[in-house]
Each structure stands twice: as C-alpha cells, then as structure tokens.
C-alpha cells in the first residue's frame, strides 16, 4: 500500500554550484552555495527553510548547513541511505514532511568533493564490523570493489540474456554527451564525441569502458520543496511532485544482489515505478521527458524497461531508434547526465527534471513537457518521481 501524496508538495527552487574536478573548498561550502542558490531561485529567505533532507553519505550535517546559512529552527531532518539510490528518496522524504505538515519548506541537498576528495572509484575497504562492512567483505578480497565492477557483473549477464549489444550502450553514452556538449555547466561542454573514441577508450571493468562511466565530480545541488499554497506566492512556476516512491526488493544487497534466482534485473525499480504510476494516476504515455540516473550507461536501459517505456529486453532497440534524443520519444538526460554534466549523486538530475517541466533546460525539447520522470541509482534500493506543472 502506498500513501497518496500526489501534488501535495511542489518544487519551487533549484540550485547548483559550479561543477569541477577540484573545488578548492570544503564540502560544507559547496552545500551552502547550492542551498543558497536554490533559496534565491525560489525567492525565499534562509529563515523560510524549516526542513532538510540529504544522503547518509553526505558529510554535511543539517545543523552545520543551517548555521552556515542562518536558517534558524528546523523541525524536520531526514537522511536517505544507499548512495545514489537516495536521490529521489530525499525528495520522497521532503514530500512526506511537507504533505504531513512536519515542515513547510524543505531543502534537499547533496554536496561532495567526489573527485578531489573521496573518490568512489577508489573502491570500498574497511575494518569495522558493521553489517554493511561485512557485506562488502564478500567481494573485497576478490577485487570486486568498485561501482563499475559491480555494475559490470550485472551488465555482462543482462547483455547475455537479452542480446543487447554495445551499440545500445554507445547510444546512451553518445546521446547524453551530445546534450552535455551544449550545456555550459557540463564537463563535456564544447566537446565532440564519436564511436571511434568510445571504442578506443580503455576498459574499466569488462564490458564497461571509460565512456560508459560517469564523471567523478566536485559540486553541490539542491532543490526546495514546499506546499502548493506557499508555492503559488513564489517567484518560479511550481513543479509539482505527482508521485514519488522508494523500494528495496526481496533479497536486496547494496550493488551486489547476486543471489536472486535471476539477478540481471532491477525488481526494486519495477515496484517503485508501479507505485509512482498508481499514486500519480499517470501512465508511461504521459511522460514527455526524463532524467534517468546514469552512473553507467547500461543502467539507463534497465530503467527504461522498469518504467515500461519498452518491454523487457527491448531497451536496446528503443534507444537505437533515437528515443533519447531531443526529437525522440523520450528526451533523456538533457543536461548531459552524470555521464557528462557532473556526478552529484542524482540531485543535479532533480534540478534538470524541474527545468524540463519549467521549460528552461538548455536542451529543452520542442514539444511540451507536461511530465518529466526522474530516478535514483539502481542496483541498490531505489526509487523515482514524476514531476508535472503545478495546477
């Protein structure tokens, strides 16, 4: 059963810092810059914020962000777990807080020095005996300890099962970078990219090559969520949360759910999609554009299937028909995605999905975008949301 919070929370402000490979500032500095940008975008004051939602992985305590910004009193603060799986989970938290009245205006933020500080590609390690550390212990001794390696294991089997080839992975990697090349905020801005460069790049963990992988980034992103009543008085057109859900499925591990009868799938996202559609009363046909979590190119394909844009095993053909391009069925990751804008753990994706509904993406499709999908990372407990124009 899923509680219905349809249209009870509205995104009214978005903000990003500059994305870089070496910010030269603290993660806290990035967090408050991103939150301040979102507050300004909304036309609010810091003291209007009374709730915060971020990742368990974020190093910036809510009270530090609040003190640095001069927010004052907080009546809600909640954290979401599981890496990039937390992206729309933070929106889920903020929506629940606003819908229930636990807070009126909640900021979702994520800020990290993901390149100059702790790098995910460095892998996991640890000598503490939490259940989480023990979980990684089944993989570390064998050398399976980076995100690329875990995703590679799923990808190899999924390609084997479906017959989808590197052509489809390239289409995701390429269509996304075409958007990024046109986005001044993106790492890939102004760059060219073709199949020869894709094929020639080094293998990270077979079958994934360099351009199947996202950018390790320094930066921060924030979005502000408030009530529809409050939203009507603010500067920007409101972008309503039509539906939002999170899900951890049966026999779930964090990136390593290798023990299911058939492990090349993302049942947790299928379930989240079902719940978001049920909550919003919308169907896949209502979705005009998307920001699909793209830490790695193949995971976009799996999510297209989970959200029903095509049948299981058909996502290769779907993207090869040009669906993700600006004139396609589902313009996707129009900011350049995490593959080529920056990897801010998916929160820059919520920012872009909001822009798509506002009509302000740097790569805004020609068609009306009434509804945009935004998703969290997969291979982990995950989720997604459908955003739409506030009524």
């Amino acid at each position, binding site marked *: 059963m899923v509680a219905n919070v349809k249209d009870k929370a509205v995104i009214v402000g978005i903000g990003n810092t500059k994305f870089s490979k070496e910010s030269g500032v603290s993660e806290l500095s990035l967090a408050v810059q991103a939150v301040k940008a979102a507050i300004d975008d909304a036309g609010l004051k810091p003291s209007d914020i009374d709730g915060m939602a971020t990742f368990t992985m974020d190093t910036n305590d809510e009270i530090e962000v609040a003190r640095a910004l001069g927010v004052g009193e907080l009546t809600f603060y909640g954290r979401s777990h599981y890496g990039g799986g937390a992206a729309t989970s933070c929106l889920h938290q903020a929506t629940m807080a606003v819908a229930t009245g636990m807070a009126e205006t909640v900021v979702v933020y994520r800020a990290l020095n993901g390149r100059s500080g702790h790098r995910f590609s*460095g892998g996991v390690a640890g000598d503490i005996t939490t259940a989480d*550390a023990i979980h990684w212990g089944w993989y570390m*001794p*064998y050398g*399976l300890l*980076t995100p690329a390696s875990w995703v590679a294991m799923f990808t*190899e089997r999924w390609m084997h099962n479906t017959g989808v080839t590197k052509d489809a992975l390239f289409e995701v990697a390429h269509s996304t970078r075409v958007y990024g090349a046109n986005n001044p905020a993106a790492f890939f801005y102004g760059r060219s990219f073709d199949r020869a460069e894709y094929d020639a790049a080094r293998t990270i963990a077979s079958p994934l090559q360099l351009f199947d992988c996202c950018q390790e980034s320094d930066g921060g992103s924030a979005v502000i969520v408030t009530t529809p009543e409050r939203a009507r008085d603010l500067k920007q057109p409101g972008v309503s949360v039509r539906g939002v859900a999170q899900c951890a499925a049966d026999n779930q591990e964090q990136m390593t759910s290798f023990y299911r009868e058939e492990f090349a799938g993302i049942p947790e996202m299928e379930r989240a999609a079902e719940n978001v559609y049920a909550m919003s009363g919308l169907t896949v046909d209502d979705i005009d554009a998307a920001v699909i979590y793209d830490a790695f190119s193949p995971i976009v394909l799996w999510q297209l299937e989970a959200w029903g844009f095509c049948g299981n095993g058909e996502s290769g053909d779907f993207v090869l028909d040009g669906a993700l391009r600006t004139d396609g069925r589902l313009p996707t990751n129009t900011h350049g995605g995490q593959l080529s804008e920056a990897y801010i753990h998916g929160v820059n994706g919520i920012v872009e999905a909001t822009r798509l509904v506002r009509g302000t993406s740097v790569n805004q499709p020609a068609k009306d975008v009434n509804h945009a999908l935004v998703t969290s990372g997969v291979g982990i407990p995950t989720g997604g949301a459908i955003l739409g124009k506030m009524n």
Partner: protein
Amino acid sequence: MTANELNAFEDEINAFVGREVCPPTPAKDDVNTAMIRQWTEIIGDTNPAYTNEAWAAKSTRGKSIAPPAMMYVWGQEGFAVTTGRPADAQADLVSLFNKHGYTGVLGTNVKQEYFKEVSPNDNVVMEMVIDNISERKTTGRGPGYFFETLSTFTNQHGEKIGTQRFKVLKFIPQEQPAAPAAEDTLQVPTRIASPRGHDNKWWWDACDAGKVLIQRCKSCQTLRHPPRPMCGECQSMEWDSIESTLDGEVLSHTELHHPKIPGYQYPLVCAVIRLGEGTNIVSNVVGCDPSAVHIGMQVKGKVEQVDEKTMLPQFYPASSGIRS
C-alpha cells in the same frame, strides 16, 4: 598470486641459477699505485705494504701489494655504468623480480675469500655467475627471495686470487601507498580482507582452513549465502553448515582493468558462480585466459593461499581437471 602462478614464477627465477653474469673479463686497467692510494686514503688504511714503495721493497714480499679487499674494484666498469650497459643475466633476474612486485632491493652481505696477492702491473680477471636463489622468505622488509652471485678472480697467469659472494634480498615492500595507481605492474602485499564479526567469522575461519562452507538452517534445511543470523524462510536462528564441493557454473563475470588495486594480481576476473549445492558465491576465475571465461562455463574451486595473508576459494575451468 595463486599457488600455480607462484610455482611458475619460482620455476622462472630458479632457471637463472648457474647462469653466467659475466664471462672471464680482464680489468681495463692493471693493478696500479694511483688507484691503491685513492682507495686506501678513503678507507683510512695506512698499511705501508700497500702504499710505501720503499718500505715494501725491504719487506719479505720485496714489493708493494694491492689490498686484497680491492679485488672487486679492478673489474668495475667506471664511467660506463652511468651511460647504460648491455643487459646481463643479473639484470634480467632483477627485472623479473620487479615485474612480479619484488621491487625492493637490499644488499645483505658480502663474503670474500683470498688465495693469492696481486701487485702493481698484475691484471685481475673477473667472472661472475648467479650461484643460488633461496626459497621464498618472510622478512621484516616484506616477503622475498635472497639471491647470491659468485665472482671468481684470477691473475694474468690464470691463478685464482679470490672469490666474492654477494647476497641480495629482492622483496615486496611492505609499506605501499594506499591509493590505487595507474601503473599496470604495481603490486603490493595482500588483498583487502573481509572484516570478521559474529555473523561471518566462522565462514572465513573455515576458509583459512581450506574449506568453503554453506550455512544451513537447522529448522528448515534451507541453505543460505552470504551467511546471516536468521533464516529468511522460517526465522530460525539455529543453523549449521555443509561443505561445498566447489563444483560450479559461471552466471556472470567481469575482468577488472582499472583502477588496479594494490595487493591484487592482474589480469583479474571476478565471477558470480552458482555452486552445485544451489547457492551463489562471488569469487575469482583463474587458470585460463580471461577472454575464455563465459556465462555457463563449468568451474571447479579450490581454496588457495593467494598472498601472504589471504586464503580464498579460486575457481578453475572444470576442464583443467583440478581437484579441490
């Protein structure tokens, strides 16, 4: 490194024993008073038998001699060492060690024996062979091997004047940077170990003893891996375990290229393997070219020591006939 890889490496290094590093080679300069004077000044040796011609002329020898310890000096290359010299067996052996991570080098001892003296205007002829290589040793500097060269010195008449044994430790440095490096050849001591707590220590302890166990619910007999404190089927907390035969099938695999993590040997293949007992396990596939690993491949596992500290199941192609 698996036991098989270690054996192959040791066969390769042991093939160097007895090989000539340099054939009998006359020194470029004869024994001479100028080099003797400089050497004894630096050493601080004032023995008149070496440098006082007048004194030496009246001694029982009737002439000066070179300090016996200078035996190795006469055959030194001189300036040529700075401009590179052709590879020899010792250089090849050193680079073989380096390639396998034994990058540390420590000269541990020199032993000289003297049989006959030389004087100015004699010529010293040196030859060198790789005399012996030790077993793999665990040392304070890291695991490694001692190898010893034997140099034999003769005079211009072919009379043996002395020998020198020079022993070197080539080792894997124990203190390596923790950060992953881009170098393809980087090697460090050990793999990242699993932390051990209440719920998994018994499994790793059994692995250390050479066994792969599978947890079994005592109440409903359901097998489960990785181990957990409670049965998800019947919620029983009572469990025992069975030993896997390590017969398996590859469900998926990936070859890890980048980053190279210190402590791991590459090429490195990880796989999800369905064991004959029905549970899945993640492990490495070894004993074949990485490109030969495929979904559906039948494999056979064996618990092996993969480095100084780590015992792990490693899976080989079943067709290789290996036995666990």
